[in-house]
């Protein structure tokens, strides 16, 4: 391993020579994250709606999510790799699984937090269940769902890096290469980019969340 003097943590030269690779890896990282969170959201919301009225199902959902939480991502990729091989699919399945945990849970919390009186009022006005769900309950659960999406996104950005074990880890790939060649600038640059993606995504979602819940702002 080189000494600190000729192995800096940051190097303009490295950036100049490798910006194209870094842009590619950042793109890979972002697209994996976006895809995973969107798929997880599409699966999680109906699941949470189904689970809401069935205590047995919601117990099973929350219980299995607690179990999956204790399963390390490396082990999950180890479980998947024999069946789905090396590459993007395996990483994506793992990411969707973890993102779903957060989203199902938060959607359930949000739906349960809808005041019974509001549900009664909607029923009294003759809303059929689907309309009640779409126009009353889901909007009221929206803040909890958005919190879940932010959490799932930040977590997913971090998790993508573990994809290196199956050869598809976005910026984790650059970290791994920096590690194998003992080049500090490469590791640090990729790590800083990861944190930057997470923070930017979080801020964007925060803004989006405010945009779609104008009634909360008005009240405040």
């Amino acid at each position: 391993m080189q000494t600190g003097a000729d192995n800096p943590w940051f190097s303009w030269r490295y950036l100049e020579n490798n910006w194209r690779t870094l842009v590619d890896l950042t793109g890979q990282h972002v697209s994996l994250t976006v895809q995973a969170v969107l798929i997880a959201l599409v699966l999680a919301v109906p699941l949470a709606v189904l689970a809401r009225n069935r205590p047995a199902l919601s117990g099973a959902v929350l219980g299995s999510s607690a179990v999956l939480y204790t399963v390390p991502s490396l082990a999950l990729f180890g479980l998947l790799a024999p069946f789905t091989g090396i590459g993007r699919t395996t990483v994506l399945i793992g990411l969707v699984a973890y993102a779903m945990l957060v989203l199902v849970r938060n959607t359930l919390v949000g739906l349960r937090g809808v005041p019974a009186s509001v549900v009664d009022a909607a029923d009294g006005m003759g809303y059929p269940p689907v309309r009640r769900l779409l126009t009353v309950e889901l909007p009221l659960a929206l803040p909890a769902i958005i919190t879940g999406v932010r959490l799932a996104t930040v977590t997913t950005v971090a998790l993508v890096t573990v994809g290196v074990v199956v050869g598809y880890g976005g910026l984790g790939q650059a970290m791994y290469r920096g590690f194998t060649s003992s080049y500090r600038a490469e590791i640090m640059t990729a790590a800083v980019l990861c944190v930057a993606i997470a923070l930017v995504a979080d801020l964007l979602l925060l803004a989006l969340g405010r945009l779609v819940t104008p009634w909360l702002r008005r009240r405040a």
Partner: protein
Amino acid sequence: MNGGSALGDALVYLNDPLSWTEPGGILDLLRDHLWMTFVAVLLAAAVALPLGLWFGHAGRGGQVVVATANLTRALPTLALLYILTAWLGLGQWPTILSVAVFAVPPILSNTWTGLREVDPAARDAGTGMGMSAARLLRDVELPLALPLIAAGVRTAVVQVVATVSLASLVGGGGLGLIISNGIFTQRYGQALAGALVVVAVCLGLEGLLAALQRMLTPAAMRRGGRRRTRAVSVTDPAPRVTV
């Protein structure tokens, strides 16, 4: 990929006594794994407990507690692992230190919340009896906050034992080595076997700690204690996914 034959290979691997007892086999890796877990949790507790007690007792520092949790969420564990390894060199210490960093938030926030949630009447009663601040902390606040603090430590242990698997990616050993070696050499049966062992260890430890916690909680506090540890998981909907 041929998943079926991988499952067969995994069973063969797990059934072979040599895979367990050979030097660098499952038992050796398990010992390293648990050792790193133990040291990391100890380090994290040594930092987080005093801080949480102090902030919680003084009723300050809520922002710090939340900020720590949020910051560590954005930083990938693997990134910190690579950075510390590039800095300190190969071995177990980079892993121990980085997983310890991520174990601080659950202990810190639970200790802080536990102390903040102590019934003000109990605190007033203690002060009224002429207790000093230190005695109030030791005899009133700490015992009442204990269920939550224990829950925080338990979360940290489970998270650390899972995250230590990543040590194999930076030359730190541990059970993750079976998985990553299996994938890198395309022996998927071994990868699958390693994953099963890691999952079993994580779930086993979680179950053990849950039983221990129930045993150590005085019967009178059991229902209240359980309810309170649940309440936390709702206010903090994000036990960190074990990256």
